[in-house]
Every structure is written in C-alpha cells, then in structure tokens.
C-alpha cells in the first residue's frame, strides 16, 4: 500500500532523512521508534505533505500513485490521515462543525453524497463514545483550551470518523497518562482490519503494550537501522537508544 524508496528530506539546510526505505502492506501496523531528532516526526509529516520539508530525493508510492505529487488535501481524500503530535487550536470554530465539514469534504472528493446534519451528528456521537469523549467537547471550539489528553482523544475521534486507509500517529502517546493512552490504543485496535494500515511513531515502548505492532523499525540519523517484530521494542526498552547508536556506526 505504501512504498517509501530512498527518501531524502531536508528542512532549511539540514538533511533529516537520508535515503529511508519502508514498505507497508494493507492491514499492517508498523511502529517507528528512535531517539529524539532521528527524523520520526519528519517522516510522519512528509507522508502527510507538510510544506516546510523539502524532498530532495526518493519516492513515496501510495496504492501505486506518486504521493509526493499530491496536495495535502488530495492525500487526505485518498485516505491518508495524520494524528498530530500537537493538534492546533482554531478559535470560534465548533468541533462538531469542523468534524462535519471534514467528513463531508472527504465524501465530496470521493463522489459520495454529503451526509445531512442529523446523520452526521449521530455518527459523531457514536464515535465519541468509542474514544470516551464527553459530548460537551463537540460544542466547544476546536481544541481550544483542551488538555493534552483531550486533544489526542479528539485526534482519535477524527480518525474513527474519517476511516483512513493509512493512519500515521505522530507521537500520539507523548504526554498522556495511562488512561488516555489506553483510549488511544483502544481506538487504533478497534479500527484495525485487513485493509487499514497504521504507522505508529513513538519514542517509548509503553504504547506498544497496548497496540501490538506487526513490525518495529528503529530510526536513527535519518535511516532505519534495524527492523524486527514486536520483540524489538522490548529489546530497545531494555538496552536503550545507545545500543541503536552503536548499531548505526557498525
């Protein structure tokens, strides 16, 4: 579904990703781990199409299409979802209206009919229950004054509503207490199926106790230095990132 070949990315004059390769098949969950500054978030943002990153080499194919040629919203329409590390606040825009517009912009782009207000609201309520979000957050301005945990819940709510084909979670677990972490994991697990794939970017192994990945990749200095199964995460937890740095120098 997603094939990344030799991806090289710069921001300003610094090269962050240095020829990264990764293949993700439908239904797989890939965890990307690595120390701070290794390029994890860069990878997540480049997949979603953030402009300040300059792709200087390589290719990303999504279902055979050149993802890098697509606009940000076109990628969303095609089924790419990014759960943000720092979801932005947009004052004066009610969460419910935002969710409704998001659902309908995807439907319109796919040639489907827009959902009416009542159906949308019903759907939103149903999914809000899934992420244990109090309905009062639907009437508030988008993310405004939300705690870190509430913002991440809201990201998961959006993911559940938009039903992406590929969901990229950019350090969704950072700063969450154990209860919020479980909510995030629960949302991912409920959405896991044979067609949908996940890229879970995380600094800590903790989240992977709840989301069991099919593959774990260790990113260091802009390349994947080691890949393995779920046990790799535990080994990392044990041996720390210093071990990875040694791997990289070999």
């Amino acid at each position, binding site marked *: 579904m997603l094939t990344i070949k030799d991806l090289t990315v710069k921001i300003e004059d610094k090269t962050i990703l240095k020829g990264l390769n990764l293949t993700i098949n439908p239904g797989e969950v890939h965890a990307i781990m690595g120390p701070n500054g290794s390029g994890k978030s860069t990878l997540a943002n480049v997949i979603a199409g953030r402009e300040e990153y300059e792709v200087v080499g390589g290719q990303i194919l999504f279902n055979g299409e050149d993802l890098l040629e697509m606009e940000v919203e076109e990628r969303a329409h095609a089924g790419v979802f990014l759960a943000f590390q720092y979801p932005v606040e947009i004052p004066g825009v009610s969460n419910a209206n*935002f969710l409704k*517009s998001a659902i309908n912009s995807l439907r319109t782009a796919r040639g489907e009919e827009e959902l009416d207000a009542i159906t949308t609201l019903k759907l939103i309520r149903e999914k809000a229950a899934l992420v244990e979000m109090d309905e009062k957050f639907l009437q508030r301005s988008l993310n405004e004054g939300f705690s870190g945990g509430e913002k991440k819940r809201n990201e998961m709510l959006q993911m559940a509503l938009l039903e992406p084909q590929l969901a990229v979670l950019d350090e969704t677990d950072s700063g969450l207490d154990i209860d919020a972490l479980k909510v995030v994991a629960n949302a991912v697990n409920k959405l896991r199926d044979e067609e949908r794939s996940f890229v879970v970017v995380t600094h800590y192994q903790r989240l992977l106790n709840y989301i069991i990945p099919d593959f774990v990749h260790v990113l260091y200095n802009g390349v994947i230095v080691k890949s393995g199964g779920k046990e790799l995460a535990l080994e990392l937890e044990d041996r720390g990132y210093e071990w990875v740095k040694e791997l990289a120098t070999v």
Partner: protein
Amino acid sequence: MSESMQILEDHTKTEYKYGFTSDLEMDALPKGLNEDVVKHISKKKNEPEFMLEYRLKAFRHWKTLKEPTWHNVHYDPIDYQDIIYYAAPKPKKELQSLDEVDPDLLKTFEKLGIPLNEQKILAGVAVDAVLDSVSVKTTYKEKLAELGIIFCSFSEAVQEHPELIKKYLGTVVPYTDNYFAALNAAVFSDGSFVYIPEGVRCPMELSTYFRINMANTGQFERTLVVAEPGSYVSYLEGCTAPMRDENQLHAAVVELISKENATVKYSTVQNWYPGNDKGEGGIYNFVTKRGLCAGRNAKITWTQVETGSAITWKYPSCILKGDHSVGEFYSVAVTNNLQQADTGTKMIHIGKNTKSTIISKGISAGKSQNSYRGLVKIGPKATNAHNFSQCDSLLMGDRCGAHTFPYLEVDNPSAQVEHEATTSKIGEDQLFYLKQRGFSEEDAINTIVSGFCKDVFQELPMEFAAEAKKLLGISLEGSVG
C-alpha cells in the same frame, strides 16, 4: 417565494425602472463647490428654507476647516473643486447581455450565490420583469404605514415630514463635528429616513435592499433613524455584491436617536470597490456615524462588516446619555492588497450605570494596513459605567500591518473599564491541519476567518451573516501562500 426574495425582486424592478426612464433631468452642475452650488442643490430638491439655511451654515463652516490628517491612512490630496456636487439621476449604461460584463465581476457574483436576474441588475443588464413588484412594494409600505412607521428616502422625508427633519437633523452629528460631516451637511444628495413611533416594534428588518427610492443615493448620503420610547428597529445597510461607483469620494453621515427603552440595531456590510491590486481607482469612504441613547435604558448596536473601499475612515459611536443605556459595537474590517482602514468606535458615557461593549476584529492581508482606533470616555457623572473592549487582529502573510489605538478618558472613579487585545497570524499550522482533514485551501481559510469573526457574525441577522462569511472568503482569496 420568501418575503425577502420578493423584496429583492422588488428592488430589482425599481432599478430597472430607473434604468429606462427617459424623462429624467440630465442636468449636472459644473465641477466645484461654492455657495451657489449649495443653493442650487437645495433648490433642485425643492427644499424648505430651513434646509437651505442648514446647508449654507454647514458650507460656511466647512470652508474654515482643514482636512484631518491624524488618521493612519495615506492618499493623494483630494481636490474638492474637481468634484461634481450635483447631478440628476442618470440612466445607467444599458448592456444587452451578461456577455458584456466584466467576467471577474460575474465570477464574484457566482461565488456569492447571487441569482442570475439579480446579477444582471447589479451589472446593469436589461432584464424582463418577473413579477408585478408594484403590488409587493405597496403591501410592504402599507404594512409599515399601519404601524405608523416612516421609511423613505431623505428627500421624500424633507417634503413629507419637514417637522421631524427640522427637529432631529444634525442633533447627533452637528455640521461642526468634523470636516467630512460639514461637507456632507452642505451638499448631501439623498439617503434614508426612518421613524418608529412610541412602543412600536418594527416587524421586519429595514434594508436598503428594499428602500423605496433607490436612485442616486451616491456620494454624500445622509441617514437619520429616530426610535421613539419603547420602540425597536433593525436596519440593514449595504450589500455584499461589489459596488462600483464613478465617484471616488464618499462622505456619508448617519444619525441614530434611541429614546427611553428603545433599541436601534444598525448593521452594515460595506463592499465598495477597493481598487485594483495596484491600489488604483478605489473608493475613499469617510463616514461619520453616531447614535444617541437619549433616554433611560436606551440601546444602540452597531454591527459592521467592512471589506471594500480603498480607504475606510469610520467610527460608529454611541453617546450614552440616558441612565442605564447600552452601546455596542461589533466590527469586522478586512483589508487586502493596498487597502487602508482606520476604523473603530467612540463610547461616550454620560449617564449613570451605562454600559458599552466593543468587539473589533481586524483582518489584514496583502500589503494592507488595518487600524483600530477607539475612544472610551467616562464622564464625571457616569457613576458605575462599564466598558468591555476586545480588539483582535489577524494577519495573513507578513507584508500587511495591524495597529491598535485605544484611547481612554475616565473622569469617574467608579468606572470599570476592561481592554483586551490580541494579534495573531493565520498559521501555516492551522491551514495544514484543516487541509490534512480534507479541506481545500479556500475552505480552510474561510473556516479560520469565520471562527475569528464569530462574535461579530452572530450579531448580524442570519441571512446577512451567511452572505458576509462568503464575502470574507472572497475578499481574502489567494492571500495566503
């Protein structure tokens, strides 16, 4: 067909009629301004003696004044002797089909969702009459008349209700007020007059859309609204469709009088031609708007959405004279390209327990400059006066400017005055977030801007608010990225 649609049709027909009337006087005075011109205007309009005197006094005063320069806008000097101050209504140049109309204008109409027939009217294309609008107009006028409400052109009011004009004209904005108010008082051509009798709640929004006489309100417009005790009126001015005018200088005066327990809501959407992207040809809009809360519990609310004009100079104000009276000002001012806006309000607290609220949202894009200028004055007798001001600026890009000039004069120690101000930049982060959720760039900008302006839009009548939102989106198109 809804009532408002019928009214639109009505308006449509009215303009159409003027477009074809062949017996209109075609005379225009030569350029320039002197006492003879003022006398001529008054005579042409068949005005009573008191009006001529008023105009002459204003003119003599204007001659002693200098054009103000304290505002934060810049323009080449205006040659006041190079302006025609009186021209009889001229038929608009008639086009045969929409193919002859500027395609940019049509594109904007389409985006605003303006019906085809109305598009034709606004662009000056001949249309066939679609319904018998005369009956609609009559029904409408009859309904208001039954309640004793007067809603007519200013000229008509001078003829039909001279006693009311004599009593109220210039009582809130005297001709001595400022340069442009003096000029307006001397040469104003026409405008609107509204009178709501005691205890009457005006059952519909009074809108310039369906004002009875639309011809040639033009350059120096004069509006007077009088709300007797216990009455209520909501007045809408302007139009979201782009308005072009060959007169570059506009200097309007609006006076509102709200008596005991009366409420006047005055909403404006201003979309005069802002000039092209080089800043050429736009309208200079120098407006004096002021309301007097004359009695106890009187209330005046100004709501404005300003997107047009090359230069906007405008401070809708409230004089809170009656005890417990309330003044409100809700404003969205958008500037793009080379537009300049210097706008805000004055809240003058005179009575006890008076209360004022100021919510100002400035949006700057392109190379534009957007200034908020506001005065809150608490007089010595205004015990327990309360003011809340919030001035927010949103910048799009890094070549525009936002400025805030709050002035505060407090002469009573019991006053409570709160001022909040923020400046934010429309963030790449916000745009990226919305686009990642499938929003187009245009929808993303509209969403962020509408959110920013929510506090003001919710004060507008609902249909107007929806149009205003669209208008904002169009005004800001292409201003990010």
